[in-house]
């Protein structure tokens, strides 16, 4: 099964790339597109034979051990 993990900086942390993108979009006339923040998306395959609980545990463990730095980031698993 293919899963997507969305990782983003916590909302209280300034995300300067989003600010720059917002400025560029505004220069192109997209002044109504605001509060832009850029994150990252990781796609991966999880074995199909895992039960939902095992799958969640595996993903959570990988996120905590390497994929996400919870001091600055938060993550969400997208189906």
């Amino acid at each position, binding site marked *: 099964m293919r899963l997507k993990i969305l990782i983003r*900086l916590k909302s209280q*942390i*300034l995300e*300067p*790339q989003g600010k*720059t993108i917002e400025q560029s979009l505004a220069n192109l006339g997209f002044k109504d597109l605001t509060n832009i923040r850029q994150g990252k998306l990781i796609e991966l395959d999880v074995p199909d034979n895992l039960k939902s609980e095992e799958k969640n545990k595996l993903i959570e463990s990988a996120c905590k*051990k*390497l*994929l996400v*730095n919870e*001091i*600055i980031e938060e993550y969400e698993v997208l189906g």
Partner: protein
Amino acid sequence: MTFKSAVITFPGSNCDRDAVTYLEDLTAGPVYKIWHEESTLPNVDLVILPGGFSFGDYLRSGAMASKSQIIKDVVKHAESGKYLMGICNGFQILTEIGLLHGALLQNNGLKFLGKNCFIKKRNRNNFNKSIDDDKILEIPVAHNEGNFYCDEDTLKDLLDNELIAFEYCDGQYSLDEANINGSLKNIAGITNKKKNILGLMPHPERAYQKYHSSEDGKLIIESILS
């Protein structure tokens, strides 16, 4: 007693050789060059995690290096109370391991900074004890992620336990407008509570010879040795 040290090289480290000559020239003791896949460290007094772009800075700076084979022994070395110093990418690796508080975010100006900066000592420790309180050190920085961040409770811990080793200042000893990368409290370097681990964004190993733009980087090794 001979002072022994080691420098760890990760794929993508690029200040490892500078760190080795820095230690060879200033400590006069043996300096071991250790590849990250090795599992044991020699018995040394100081380990340096050098600057560079370990594992291409993929995922997050220092994230992959913090899981390298040698790190288990680096942690043991530090837990025994011996010195451990992470410079630039090494500082990022130390926060990713969890040996130091906080994290290093992208510079708030979004630019890679490669220039000399000014820092001064804030809290006394074995890495800066030979440096006068009012001494301003001129040391090069070369980083894209040097913007130190931590939450409020952690910052309180850093302040209460006097863990801020160095802070950015300007040549006139003012902290205003000297904050080159957006770091909380102008933090350029911090220690752990036992004060045997230092993480530092500026590069002292690029500022210790007469032909360098400054020799202030010497003062850190002199502090350790004194």
